[in-house]
């Protein structure tokens, strides 16, 4: 088992013909993900190394039965692409695009919440279920199948922590990034509730960062709803107020959204917080024992 992506995933990539889209789409395909289609308006009828391209998402879904869409189109067109995928009946949309305007995402988020399509991202690295499917830009070769579920706002930090955990002998049920933007389709709570329900997952690791109050709300959620052990990491203790730290969402506003407050909130609810990526792996070993 795993969450969100697996052997049933049939992937369509919006923007497959672009440089990044081609690179990562084929990477996902080579990993074993069932890449069934690409969508690029005006390039319908072409193909990318055998994967057919369609002018519209509706045609792609109609012809191939795609159920998962990865969005790689540039920011000005990304909201439209997400809405198109939802309208075409896609179950899961993974939006990699960074820099989508917040107001676009407010509309998209509100619209999607009222339907049955799940959005992960935007500005996220995607989701990898080792041995089953990889949808996104996570370098899969660091990870193997196992019982740790990992969810993060950040990409490279995910790999850093994931790798530390892997070196302690663990594999992963799924590894996912929910994205560094202020309005994301999937929250920590959403992802953790999926890991809680996933029989393969025995330990959940969440990597938060400064900005917003999602980590705080997640702490409350975990205390009330999660039976599996959860370990957290929070980045940005050193971040000064008012400065955006790379991610659009990573900003301390006044006294709100600090790493210290988040770590404190999590620890108050019994979630152990690693001081650095290495310590996260050490706590994981303590929690469920190394399989190495």
């Amino acid at each position, binding site marked *: 088992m795993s969450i969100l992506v697996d052997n049933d995933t049939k992937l369509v990539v919006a923007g497959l013909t672009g440089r990044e889209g081609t690179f990562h789409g084929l990477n996902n395909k080579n990993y074993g993900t069932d890449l069934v289609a690409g969508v690029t308006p005006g390039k319908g009828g072409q193909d990318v190394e055998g994967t057919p391209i369609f002018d519209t998402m509706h045609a792609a879904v109609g012809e191939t039965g795609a159920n998962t869409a990865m969005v790689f189109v540039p920011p000005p067109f990304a909201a439209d692409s997400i809405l198109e995928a939802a309208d075409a009946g896609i179950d899961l949309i993974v939006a990699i695009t960074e820099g989508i305007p917040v107001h676009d995402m407010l509309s998209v988020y509100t619209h999607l919440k009222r339907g049955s399509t799940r959005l992960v991202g935007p500005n996220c690295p995607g989701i990898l279920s080792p041995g089953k499917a990889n949808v996104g*830009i996570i370098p899969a070769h660091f990870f193997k199948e196992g019982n740790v579920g990992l969810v993060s706002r950040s990409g*490279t930090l995910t790999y850093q922590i994931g790798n530390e955990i892997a070196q302690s002998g663990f594999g992963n049920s799924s590894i996912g990034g929910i994205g560094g933007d202020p309005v994301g389709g999937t929250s920590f709570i959403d992802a953790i509730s999926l890991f809680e329900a996933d029989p393969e997952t025995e330990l959940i690791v969440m990597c938060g960062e400064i900005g917003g109050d999602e980590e705080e709300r997640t702490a409350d959620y975990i205390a009330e709803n999660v039976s599996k052990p959860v370990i957290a990491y929070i980045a940005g203790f*050193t*971040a000064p107020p008012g400065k955006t730290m*790379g*991610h659009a969402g990573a900003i301390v506003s006044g006294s709100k959204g600090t790493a210290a407050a988040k770590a404190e909130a999590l620890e108050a609810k019994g979630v152990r917080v690693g001081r650095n990526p290495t310590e996260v792996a050490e706590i994981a070993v303590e929690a469920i024992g190394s399989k190495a």
Partner: protein
Amino acid sequence: MDLLEYQGKQLFARNGVPVPEGCQAATVEAAADAADELGYPVVVKAQVQVGGRGKAGGIKLANDRGEVEEHAGAILGMDIKGFTVHELYIEKASDIAEEYYAAIVFDRGAKKPMAMFSKMGGMDVEAVAEEDPEAMRTVHIDPLIGFQAHHGRRLAYEAGIATDVVRPVGAMLAKLYDTFVAEDCMLVEVNPLLITGAREVVALDAKVTVDGSALYRHPDTAEFRNLGDEDPQEQMAKERGLTYVKLDGNVGILGNGAGLVMSTLDVVAQAGGRPANFLDAGGGSKADAIVSAVEVILSDPKVSAVLFNIFGGITRCDEVANGLVEAFGKVDVEVPFVVRLDGTNDEEGRRILADAALEGVTVEKTMLGAAAKVVELAG
């Protein structure tokens, strides 16, 4: 991106939010000419992005040209809470009957816009919140339905303002919401929102933050500059397309990916060091970007050692290593470097660095080890 008052008021004016007549000025003479044009009395206002300008002496009433010259001269160059005043806004003086507070903010937790209103305006909001938390009224707005008349009525009645201004205040809030949406704002704050003697509603101040990601559809806003806000390193980084934030320590830091860089700053701080900057070289960092990044980091004279912390996913460690070698060829490097390369092509990267044998470059295998080393070297 935070706007200065006069910039925010330009956005207001084009979206139908009533504002007093006014004019920006960067010199004493321009200020006096603007005041002559507007007619007296005028208010001379320091343009800095910080509250409490009035208390600091940055806002002055002037009844004639002489007074404008006097105040403008005093205010230009003034330091207000660490911000130097480079620009003034000369505004027609308003007839003040009441001072309220109004704002439209993006509530990240609810993932909705939120309208805020209080009849206690003209003072520090956080002070009001402490003194009388009930005074600040809020409603969430469904972004697909938008601001409705009932939202405005509810805020106005709950805040307890006089009945005769309920409708015009509601109309003002609707216009502020229009501005918030049309101009891709993250925050629109008016403090004070004025009721004049003639019972008209006017925005006397404007604190506006716009979404940097949406600037492509607002070319006018994208041109706004804040002369007081431009750190030379940040300016240089921006021109080179790098994500850089200046901090006040001495350990220069480069990493790939925002989360990893934040984590690197933390680990350096835990090891007892003080980071000099945040610099995300991005996914897939190419040699060119590395050279640029090294130049930006080293342009800060405080930097006494530099840490490269790379976990290669899309980024290839060999390319980073080549970039560093190239940078050492182009830039005069006088501080020690600690490099940690892990992930994609890490062995190849480390081999390149070993072959190049760059002076002052130490290679470490782990993030914690690298942090300890750079702190030691930075002194």
